[in-house]
């Protein structure tokens, strides 16, 4: 029937009649979502970095000096058949020297003066994404052992530590996010209860003239939902600004070291989720306070 439009009109009117309370509710929701969003941006980017470095998880197999081209070719083919292996590249002694020379400014000139090339040739083994967890890398490395290799090398400690750090971060994000959302529901519930208290006459009069419970409550729920959505929207805008002016600054100073697209903005699903969280918090806050307020007997 026309209960929906009525509720919407009432909700809008209620928000304009009690602007202070509306602004308070929207601010609380926006602040919480902003914190969550900022955290999500940091998290997204950190796992992005891990993913990229994960692609770089390579096991360098340094070859003995006396293995000929045929031997190298046979070894390379053998490693490539392994199910964990994505690709194997051969790096000759000369290439190794060149890469090493390029890694530090001016080093190539120093190296050019050497009589002999001290660097071994190597097979660089890149693993499939499914086998890049630290313990798996160690396992694969073990199975790569051959007499033709003088040494195996991979940066396991670092990857492991990074992984642990990231799990910790995810866990704390979960805990913090839950706490924040619960606090938001509580705060929103309280501000809406204030709004209801300010308008308790309305609930009583609606009851007196024969309005059902839902007729009286629906405007408050709509109001909560609207404020939640608005809070979500405000948080998105602030997040965008924060990203633009704070995070990208960080990228400018660190970007070279950490990779080109550090500090990306949140993906669309995450933005939608943020809006949905605002809606849910607003609705839940309104619900908890409306359910607790009984229309007082007249």
């Amino acid at each position, binding site marked *: 029937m026309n209960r929906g439009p009525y509720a919407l009109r009432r909700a809008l009117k209620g928000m304009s009649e009690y602007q202070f309370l509306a602004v308070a509710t929207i601010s609380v929701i926006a602040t919480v979502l902003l914190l969550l969003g900022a955290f999500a941006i940091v998290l997204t980017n950190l796992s992005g970095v891990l993913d990229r470095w994960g692609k770089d998880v390579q096991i360098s197999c340094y070859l003995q000096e006396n293995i000929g081209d045929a031997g190298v070719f046979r070894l390379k083919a053998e490693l490539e058949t392994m199910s964990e292996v994505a690709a194997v590249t051969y790096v000759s002694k000369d290439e190794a020297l060149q890469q090493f020379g390029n890694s530090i400014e001016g080093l190539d000139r120093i190296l050019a003066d050497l009589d002999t090339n001290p660097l071994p040739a190597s097979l660089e083994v890149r693993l499939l994404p499914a086998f890049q967890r630290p313990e798996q890398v160690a396992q694969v490395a073990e199975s790569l052992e051959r007499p033709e290799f003088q040494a195996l090398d991979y940066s396991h400690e670092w990857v492991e530590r990074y992984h642990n750090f990231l799990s910790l971060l995810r866990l704390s994000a979960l805990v913090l996010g839950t706490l924040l959302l619960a606090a938001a529901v509580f705060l929103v519930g309280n501000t809406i209860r204030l709004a209801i208290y300010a308008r308790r*006459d309305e609930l009583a009069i609606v009851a*007196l003239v*024969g309005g059902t419970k839902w007729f009286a409550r629906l405007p408050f729920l709509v109001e909560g939902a609207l404020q939640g959505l608005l809070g979500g929207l405000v948080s998105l805008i602030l997040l965008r600004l924060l990203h633009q002016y704070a995070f990208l600054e960080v990228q400018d100073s660190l970007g070279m070291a950490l990779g080109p697209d550090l500090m990306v903005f949140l993906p669309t699903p995450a933005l939608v989720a943020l809006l949905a969280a605002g809606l849910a918090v607003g609705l839940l806050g309104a619900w908890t306070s409306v359910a607790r307020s009984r229309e007082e007997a007249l």
Partner: protein
Amino acid sequence: MIQFRDVTKVYRKTGTALEALDLSFDEGEFAFITGPSGAGKTTLLKLLYAAERPSSGEVLIEGRAISRLHPRSVPWLRRNMGVVIQDFRLLPRRTVAENVALALEVCGLKQADIQQRVHAALDRVGLRDMANRLPTELSGGEQQRTAIARAIVNEPSIILADEPTGNLDQELSFDIMGLLVDLCHEKRATILVATHDRNQLDAWNVREVQLADGRLVGDVLADEKANGSNRRPTTEVEQAEADEQPQAQGDCIANQEERPDSRPEDEDWQAQEDPGEEASI
């Protein structure tokens, strides 16, 4: 139309407010409920619009025990009633017209219908030109008229008014009471007015139900009042006789025109549930 059968109301905190009350009102009757402060007048009215439930006994409207009404059906009962409460609460931030319209909006009427009926109701109480004012911009009497307009806008068959002239001066009080009495004539509504305003009680030749300490201590019919015979015994036997008297009591039934049978909606409060209601959220 309205019957109290051996009704006792005990408030948990303050004790007995009404005791063994036997009382009935006919359709189209106008009656004052009177008695000193704390006598139980408001409680009696609250039992009728189901804001309170009797501790024992039964309250019947058109044969239905509203004292046992499911809480979900209470709204439909009230849509069939007009209630003016003691402090005639209006919504302070809404105009006169919006305050009156609320009683129709809860029924889900179309805006056009609402506008038209609100206009008619405001016309009826003489507030046509004040439709767009806020309650704070009205005098006490005008506020009271607004509350009455809200009570009559859905053409109820029962109007309950609790001290409708509570803090108004004499002239305004006559005005308001006259309005209610006229409504009784016009709409053939049953109207109960709680008041302890002696001037009003003496001025109108209508039934007077007297309460004291929660007990019925007198029930003076309009004609008896005119004849000057004051007290009317209220033993159970005689009460039962009184119930059977089909004759009109009070002077409001004099011109019995057909009561317009147009309700805001065909919803019947006697229906236990409205299926559309729960679905709307």
